């Protein structure tokens, strides 16, 4: 069996908008979600901005989960999944719930729960570890929260391949539906802002103070961020049979591992990943109309990403923008948000911009980052890049339904 796979529902819980309408409007307008950090005390830190989802009210979005029993990342995932299911008009699908699988990505799982536990241990020692927090700890709950919120009895996988995890999830879902293992998949990713990531990125020299400016000559790094994102996937036949609106088709994906360095990206491995994705999708580089970049705005990532794109695409570079300029780095959700930008490029006819852009890095000749303002275009094929610590590269290819 080799079924075609389409995206029929989108669910963003982001710093620039919750729900697909608000998110689309913000993405098109190039809105920034970066604000002063509210979730932890930033005293003593030299930088205090992040992409937090201040408006997240899980009790308003969730139907079945009790927010008191779940960590923030799991709640992001479940809320995003609920939104995606509703957006897909697939609220009747859970009647066949065993045929719906879940695959969600995360970088740090319930990082805020780890921080609360750590604070408790520091203040009170290990005995008396709060049961409520201990139960919220497993990272696998990020997918399990989706299963419980939507009442799904199919498999629930949490992919924890750091910042490319959502793309991994999307790829796995593509395979699961294509082979007939599942009929529907809810996929995406979630992570929460935490102190230790803020500190760690700063000490790596990879944290920007004010704004995230991917591919800019003065780029200074990431802004840590959070959120949840979900996509509802089904076979093309299923979507047609129920008259569902189709955002885009998933054409294929590629995975590679650098096997070189725990944090530094490797352009050669990234280029190989692109070629694998193109081959899997049956597309040639000159057919790719738009790239949703990983684009973290660290000097290392953007240099490697540009080099890989140049190696694979030659002199004709498609426009390549990074939603991290607006959202910050949402970690395990990041490539899911990029996939949303890709799906919306195809369905709503605009390329999301790279905001905060002043001057393209002069080493990156021929690069069009879609600076500062979104651009009306009708791309047919979109490439979504996701890279990560651990050298975990994942690239998905989305296409207009032909």
């Amino acid at each position, binding site marked *: *069996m080799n079924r075609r796979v389409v995206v029929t529902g989108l669910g963003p819980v982001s710093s620039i908008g919750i729900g697909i309408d608000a998110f689309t409007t913000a993405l098109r307008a190039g809105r920034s979600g970066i604000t002063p950090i509210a979730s932890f005390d930033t005293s003593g*830190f030299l930088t205090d901005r992040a992409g937090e989802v201040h408006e997240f009210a899980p009790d308003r979005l969730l139907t079945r989960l009790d927010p008191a029993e779940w960590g923030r990342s799991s709640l992001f995932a479940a809320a995003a999944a609920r939104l995606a299911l509703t957006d897909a008009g697939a609220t009747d699908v859970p*009647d066949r719930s*065993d045929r719906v699988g*879940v695959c969600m990505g*995360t970088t740090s*799982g319930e990082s805020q729960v*780890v921080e609360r*536990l*750590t604070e408790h*241990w*520091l203040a009170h020692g*290990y*005995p008396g*570890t709060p049961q409520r927090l*201990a139960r919220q700890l*497993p*990272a*696998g*709950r*990020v997918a*399990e929260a989706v*299963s*419980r919120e939507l009442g*799904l*009895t*199919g*498999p*629930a*996988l*949490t*992919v*924890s*391949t*750091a910042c490319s995890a959502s793309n*991994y999830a999307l790829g*796995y879902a593509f*395979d699961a539906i294509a*082979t007939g*293992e599942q009929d529907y998949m809810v996929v995406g990713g979630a992570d929460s802002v935490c*102190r*230790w990531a803020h*500190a*760690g*990125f700063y*000490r*790596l*020299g990879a944290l920007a103070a004010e704004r995230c400016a991917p591919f800019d000559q003065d780029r200074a790094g990431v802004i840590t961020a959070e959120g949840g994102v979900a996509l509802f996937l089904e076979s093309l036949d299923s979507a047609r049979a129920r008259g569902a609106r189709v955002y885009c088709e998933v054409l294929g994906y590629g*995975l*590679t*591992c650098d*096997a*070189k360095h*725990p*944090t530094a990206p490797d352009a050669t*491995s990234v280029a*190989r990943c692109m070629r694998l994705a193109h081959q899997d999708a049956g597309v040639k580089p000159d057919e790719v109309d738009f790239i949703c970049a990983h684009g973290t705005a660290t000097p290392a990532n953007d240099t490697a990403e540009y080099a890989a794109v140049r190696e694979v695409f030659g002199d004709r570079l498609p426009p390549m923008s990074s939603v991290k300029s607006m959202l910050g780095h949402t970690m395990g959700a990041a490539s899911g948000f990029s996939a949303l930008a890709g799906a919306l490029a195809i369905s709503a006819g605009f390329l999301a911009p790279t905001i905060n852009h002043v001057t393209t890095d002069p080493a990156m000749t021929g690069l069009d980052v879609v600076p500062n303002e979104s651009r009306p275009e009708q791309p047919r094929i979109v490439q979504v890049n996701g890279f990560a*610590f*651990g050298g*975990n590269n994942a690239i998905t290819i989305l296409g207009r339904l032909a």
Partner: protein
Amino acid sequence: MTVTTDPPTSDFALGVSGWGVLSPYGLGADEFTAGLRTGRDGTVDAAALTDEAVPDPRAYGLAGFRARDHLGRKGTSFLDRRTAFAVLACGQALADSDLVVGDDNRDRVGVVLGTNVGSLQSTSDYSRDTLVQEKPYLVNPILFPNTVLNCAAGQAAIWHQLRGVNTTLAGGGMATLAGLRYAMTVLRRGRAQALLVGAVEEYTPQMAWAEHATAAAPTTVGGEGGAVFLVEDAAAMRAAGRDPVAEIIAVDLGHTGDRGDLATALADRVRRVLAQAGVAAEDLATVVTSGAAAEERALDEVVGPDADRVAISDLAGNCPTAAGALQVAAVLAHHRGAPEHDGCLSLIVASTVDGAVGAAVLKGAGRAARDHR
């Protein structure tokens, strides 16, 4: 709920070509097999693992384990215990297999490792540093990757130069079955030639107390270790004249979806996985559970009393992530160097307290230890 029929998935089986295991019985498949056969108590004094107070004085621990003793001094000083376990177990599995990994195939050999929260000690210590250092940002940048859940799989790839699919799956006690299910899909789709699949976990006071506090486990004795299996397309192995040491015929995963109880959901999955594997419940020689009471209830309902039942918590303590991998290792050990067990069928079941359930059917071959060499 509409009743649907399962798609045929049993047309693809995983062949295990080698495996590695880290347990209190020792490091390696032979040591584990020997330990299982003697049935000796694997617990050690927890004081041999940590200076901190812990909830139980005993632990299924790898007392005296030092990464540098097995991996050398170079590059090991910043590996956390879990990552060192992963690197070592992957190396053992590669060494136990007849698959030759070289420049012609290293792009197509990968790693799929299960975890619960990564290294809780690494993340918690990092978080702690933001609270106790003079400035909150004075954390050690070199240790930052250790806070990310995919650290172990990434390091295993670096250490063994494996550039294929590299995936980390978080699922605690379900993570190994999830990895095997994932590997089936990935290999079946031709995305890799061979995958090191398994899970490892470290004993730390943080995790010991966190597991203890959940009050969900059948035992208070902590544990650590894990296992890694090199899996390939079983049919392709045979076509190349290579006999797998075991075949994983079917793996099926599900969830209660908060719609029913765990035992019912698991019983349903066991029925499905047996159907996919074309195996009758009475044909099962062995069933390995993670030790949860709900699993026993499901098995009473579906499998009945005839098959031998092993609860892995008796070997791994309260360490679900390692236990999930040791469940598979226990079946392989049953067959290792024991051709009289040829063709025996085993069932593995696992679950999480939040409702994930899974089951796998394995068929062991009697290949003697390393007799393919």
